[in-house]
């Protein structure tokens, strides 16, 4: 037991070190490269008189923070969805939640303009929930019921439909949607830091709910009857998980637009290291998700420098092949 605890500490420390490294690397890259050592110095001992320190704190750190938070939120959402539905292919993007949240934000923005900013996470949550309900309803009505494949088909149909509607709305009102255009491809930008304050309560709620249900999800993976026999309040766990998934996804969409495949890829990668026990899968999904999106956002900026690729394109470029492999391996 003690050995296991020590091993756990070691694993956790390694992960924390990786995040710290990516965080510093992420900040050091930009129009003017700042050495990683200077980044750490700036983070530990901020000196207002040094120009680089101001760049680190005020210009670059917000973007790195958003990347971490969004990566963690989407990865934890995916882990919960996969665990609760016993569906290895569950993901906020594949099951239509990202499209639903984006659509709701676009509509809200069209109706009320920037007045919607304070309630943007709430609007996004409503969209995600409605899309998820619709996807589940369509899949349940399909022959054979809500199986991984029918769910994904329904999710793809709803996502495609909503994207088409968004595109049409964009054409009709080009001026207003110019600002949303980049956001809709999934972009991490320090400008969105203004939204962080409105998202924090939802992120807090989502992560806390996810940690609270983590242990029960392992039991639920063995079937509802087994979970009931073990004394798990199944209905409560499912409701809490839904709350966590929707508020985390909505916050992620508010901060960075729809970023696909993170919720799919990260939990599977995490299970390779920590096994199937969700007491470990959930927190490690958060850590690895944070590190992954920092990494992806670094790639997005250096791959074709000085041109910056949209982060959402990179997550899809990396995630789609993994999805194909997963379908071949698990279905």
């Amino acid at each position, binding site marked *: 037991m003690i050995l296991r605890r020590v091993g756990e500490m070691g694993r956790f420390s390694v992960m924390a070190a990786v995040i710290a490294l990516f965080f510093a690397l992420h900040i050091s890259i930009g129009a003017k490269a700042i050495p990683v050592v200077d980044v750490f110095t700036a983070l530990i001992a901020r000196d207002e008189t040094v120009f680089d320190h101001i760049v680190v704190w005020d210009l670059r750190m917000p973007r790195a923070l958003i990347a971490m938070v969004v990566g963690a939120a989407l990865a934890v959402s995916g882990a919960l969805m996969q665990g609760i539905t016993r569906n290895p292919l569950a993901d906020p993007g594949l099951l239509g939640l990202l499209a639903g949240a984006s659509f709701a934000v676009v509509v809200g923005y069209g109706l009320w303009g920037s007045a919607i900013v304070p309630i943007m996470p709430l609007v996004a949550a409503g969209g995600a929930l409605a899309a998820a309900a619709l996807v589940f309803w369509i899949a349940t009505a399909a022959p054979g019921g809500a199986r991984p494949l029918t769910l994904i088909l329904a999710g793809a149909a709803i996502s495609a439909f909503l994207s088409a509607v968004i595109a049409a709305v964009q054409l009709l009102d080009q001026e207003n949607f110019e600002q949303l255009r980049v956001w809709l491809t999934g972009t991490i930008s320090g400008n969105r830091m203004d939204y962080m304050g409105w998202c924090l309560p939802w992120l807090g709620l989502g992560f806390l709910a996810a940690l609270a249900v983590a242990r029960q999800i*392992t*039991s639920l993976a*063995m079937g509802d009857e*087994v979970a009931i026999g073990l004394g798990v309040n199944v209905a409560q766990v499912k409701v809490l998980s839904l709350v966590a998934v929707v508020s985390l996804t909505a916050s992620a969409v508010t901060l960075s637009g729809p970023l696909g495949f993170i919720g799919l890829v990260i939990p599977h990668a995490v299970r390779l290291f920590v*096994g199937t026990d969700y007491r470990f899968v959930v927190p490690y999904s958060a850590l690895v998700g944070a590190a992954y999106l920092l990494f992806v956002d670094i790639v997005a900026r250096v791959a074709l420098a000085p041109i910056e690729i949209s982060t959402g394109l990179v997550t899809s470029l990396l995630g789609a092949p993994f999805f194909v492999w997963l379908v071949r391996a698990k279905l």
Partner: protein
Amino acid sequence: MAHTATEWVENDKVKVLPLVPQPAAEKACALRVQRLTAGYGDSPILKDIDLEVPEGEITILVGPNGCGKSTLLKTMARIITPSHGTVMLNGQNVHQMPTRHVAQQMALLAQGPIAPEGLKVRELVAQGRFPHQSLLKQWTKEDREAVDWAMEVTNIAQFAERPIDALSGGQRQRCWIAMALAQETDLVLLDEPTTFLDLKVQVDVMNLLTQTANEAGKTLVIVLHELNIAAAYADNLVMMRGGEIVAQGAVNSIFTRENLRAVFGLDARVIFDAEAGRPICMPNLNG
């Protein structure tokens, strides 16, 4: 032992047919089902069932497909909520108690549980400790001892670090049993624990269950398909048909040719195996 209607007629030449056992013969009752009506949707599968599960004994439920034996077990295990009636566990209604409190006193081995890919045997058995843990009290010495004991009696300690999905059907079933035992409850409900297993493995599983129950003084309620296995292991046999209990009591008085015909529509000879002290049935092939 609960006396049945037929037994009263034979032993005491009494013409009335009391369904209530004599107080003198009454044993402590681990689980009391009263006037239970339950099922899926509108049409009830169970009709006004009364059943007392004697403490420290092995009660086995048998009956033809669709007779409601699994529904009864699931309603006792609070998986199905009854439309009428109560299931009392130590004086409390299981459908109104907090589900964790029920799980501290009653374990369930569900039918066809899913083995999550990659979950190690020790992790699976440790799930049985869930009702004894809380957010503040995560993992204690008692938890570890209970898990070690459960893996030892079920003889799966050598697989502790292996993933459950890499084991054979019989080994896997022993893991599920270990999980239920790790729950450390006086009462264990088992829904067809031997289905899809070879006869030899069925016997192994039943030996394991009955020996552990006897040594630890546990009460078992088991739904079984195999009549001869039921007859070989039951202390208290319950026969169901059409959502009702048709006969119940000691095996030797219940496992009769008449009851098998009445309950299963099965034409069989019942032979007494003196070595085991138990009856067995042989279906008549040309009859």
